[in-house]
């Protein structure tokens, strides 16, 4: 009955930290536990994304109120931001390519697609720093005006979340090297959920800061 531990998917514990032999979903009632919502790690991750969303909703409300003040001077977006956007979206595409291969038993190239994802992630962060320096060269700093304050703060915060994603990425990379993901299964799903969320969040921030 209680084979939950054996059935646990590799990586299902993810970085959220359920070690082997510790409680698995529905463990208590074997296969009969009521009302289980997806797998446990995925549900925990979704709740976490909900929390991150609330953080940025909090900033959004502050932004929308602050931009109505008289001292608001809109910034022009540094051109490199559009390039960075393309880089980040491409990294999502390469991650999907890796997932598709893993699911389809086509293990050739999984490693390169995964590595490409991480490399593009790093490139995005470098690009963001370049954007900061470009603004700095124009004399626009954190405290210059409210729009620049929000720009530096929100891009910085998004960058920190992406940096966290890259730490997770290193764990994924080790797993791929060890061939720890079972072919035919979607072992990269949790990481992909987080990574795509950050891409979506970036598009949202871009819209908030420069389109709205």
């Amino acid at each position: 009955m209680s084979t939950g531990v054996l059935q646990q998917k590799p990586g299902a514990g993810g970085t959220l930290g359920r070690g082997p032999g510790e409680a698995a979903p529905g463990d208590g009632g074997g296969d009969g536990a009521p009302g289980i919502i997806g797998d446990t790690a995925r549900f925990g991750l979704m709740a976490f994304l909900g929390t991150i969303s609330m953080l940025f909703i909090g900033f959004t409300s502050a932004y929308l109120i602050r931009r109505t003040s008289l001292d608001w001077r809109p910034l022009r977006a540094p051109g490199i931001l559009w390039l960075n956007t393309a880089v980040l979206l491409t990294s999502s595409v390469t991650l999907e390519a890796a997932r598709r291969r893993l699911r389809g038993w086509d293990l050739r190239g999984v490693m390169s697609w995964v590595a490409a994802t991480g490399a593009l992630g790093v490139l995005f962060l470098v690009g963001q720093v370049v954007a900061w320096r470009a603004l700095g060269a124009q004399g626009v700093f954190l405290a210059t005006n409210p729009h620049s304050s929000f720009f530096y703060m929100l891009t910085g915060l998004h960058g920190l979340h992406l940096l966290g994603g890259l730490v997770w990425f290193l764990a994924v990379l080790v797993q791929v090297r060890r061939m720890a993901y079972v072919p035919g299964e979607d072992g990269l799903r949790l990481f992909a959920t987080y990574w795509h969320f950050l891409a979506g969040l970036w598009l949202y921030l871009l819209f908030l800061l420069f389109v709205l």
Partner: protein
Amino acid sequence: MAHAGEAHAAEAHAHAPQAFIWRYVFSKDHKVIGVQYYVTAMTMALVAGLLAMLIRVQLAWPDVDWGFVGRLLPMGFQGGAGQPFVMNPEFYSMLFTMHGTIMVFFVMSTAPVSGFGNLLIPLQIGARDMAFPFLNALSYWTFLPGCIVILSSFFVSAGAAAAGWTSYPPLSALQGAIPGSGMGQTLWIVGMVFFIASFTMGGLNFLTTILNMRTKGMSLMRMPLTMWSMMLVAILGLLAFPALVAGCLMLLFDRHFGTSFFLPAGLVLSSQPLLTPEGASLHQGGSPLLWQHLFWFLGHPEVYILMLPALGFTSDLISVFCRKPIFGYRTMVGAMGAIAFLSFIVWGHHMFISGMNPYLGMAFAVGTILIAVPSAVKTFNWLSTLYKSRIQFTTPMLWAMGVVSLFISGGLSGVWLAQAGPDIHLHDTMFVAAHFHLIMAGAALFGVFGATAMWFPKMFGRLMNEKLGKVHFWLTFVTYYGTFFPMHYIGLAGHMRRIYDPYQYPFLKHLQPINQFITVSAIILGSAQILFFVNFFWSAFKGKKASENPWNANGLEWTTPSPPPHGNWPGEIPEVHRWPYEYSPPGAARDHVMQHEPATEAVPGH
């Protein structure tokens, strides 16, 4: 089945770490983490309680010579060398700021939620541990540095934060505004971010565990009401705390990096306008109101993060010791859900005097008064459960009835404060302090004491001493009202909530005997807590050994040894066939039927 159970039990035991440090210090076992949280929170309570004593003595006798206390706390007092010791006004502000901050976040959010939540969730829903044990341990080890940071702020040169537990800018945003606006305020922000990070990890764990790890048969509507309260608290925390993180971050930037999120133009500090070297205003365009909105968007749900677990404990305790099913289980769940939902749309009632549009104020007032409906539902359900029952006056039951009493008395003054009109008169008076100490602080505190007496066997395998517990209850109950009830009266008479020396206004002088009465009562209240700590430690080591189910209760936590082993059940996890409120069913052999007992003809499942 049996075979699998043995195998699983063996496996569970095999995974219990043996070394002391992994077993009791860096443990991933939810029961150990729960006790760690609880003990840390109670230690913080001791500190914050002592701060409250200093506040009260200062209010009652502003010109008293503090003597050895002044010698003990040189950062807060002036005097010595023949002169009497006098408390610094700045230190007084630090006292009430830190008392509020520590009590609200590091005690009353932590002991019931992180303490009892961790202890009880897997035991009550039938799981071997929380969903993410490592995250759980990490959460505690994030909380502890937060405590240390907050406490350490008393020892930095200019002293602890002093802008109130709400930390309104510009006081909190300008480093030079008051001594407490310096390093102490920065440490306040850092400590809060640690706390929120820890609470978020806990919330993720709570929600995932309750939704995904329930044992067979444990449908949501068969969960004890304590579990419902924990689930709602987790949702409140996950959705509300991020707003404060956003606010704290902006505050930090305003303080250290020259931004103007909360700081308007034209600020003057010690008669010097704040200017840039070029002569322009240093800050401009920011809005202190923005902080208030972000703070209270968290702050109001936070009130229910404190309250809901106490309401859950109370429901469960009352049912056990009335030997009756809880009256209106479904309406209880609905009422808690409604309270949790409403808590998100009423934050503006903390800001009635901030100059908001009267129509907006009315909307916030209506929402707030609506909370009276689910609150009344809960009260009447408790009273209906008590009605015509054979009450067993055990210590946990006394605390539960104390919660009901405080919930009613504190709730009634809430109706006054909920409306903009009366609130404009009462805002920032002792009336507000009376209100929230009764309902939020008091109900939560009594809930924690009740839960401690009730679930002590599952923490330490022993029972707390009943006689000592009852003395502790009655002393606390009487002096709690003695301390906070008169505050309504002096508040109505205009006594400010945050004032260093009531003698400075002639119209407050005649209230001084009441202030002194309150202080005497508060000192007895504080001293009575010594009984609790004595009882706690004595019982943990020397108390009467508890059986599996000393209270004859129905929940799953009472089907496993006291204290439960690693993995919670020595064998298979029990399967659930009914709700946990089957007390005194007609036709049954005993006066209660436990959740795991199969349905019979006399007592079908529920």
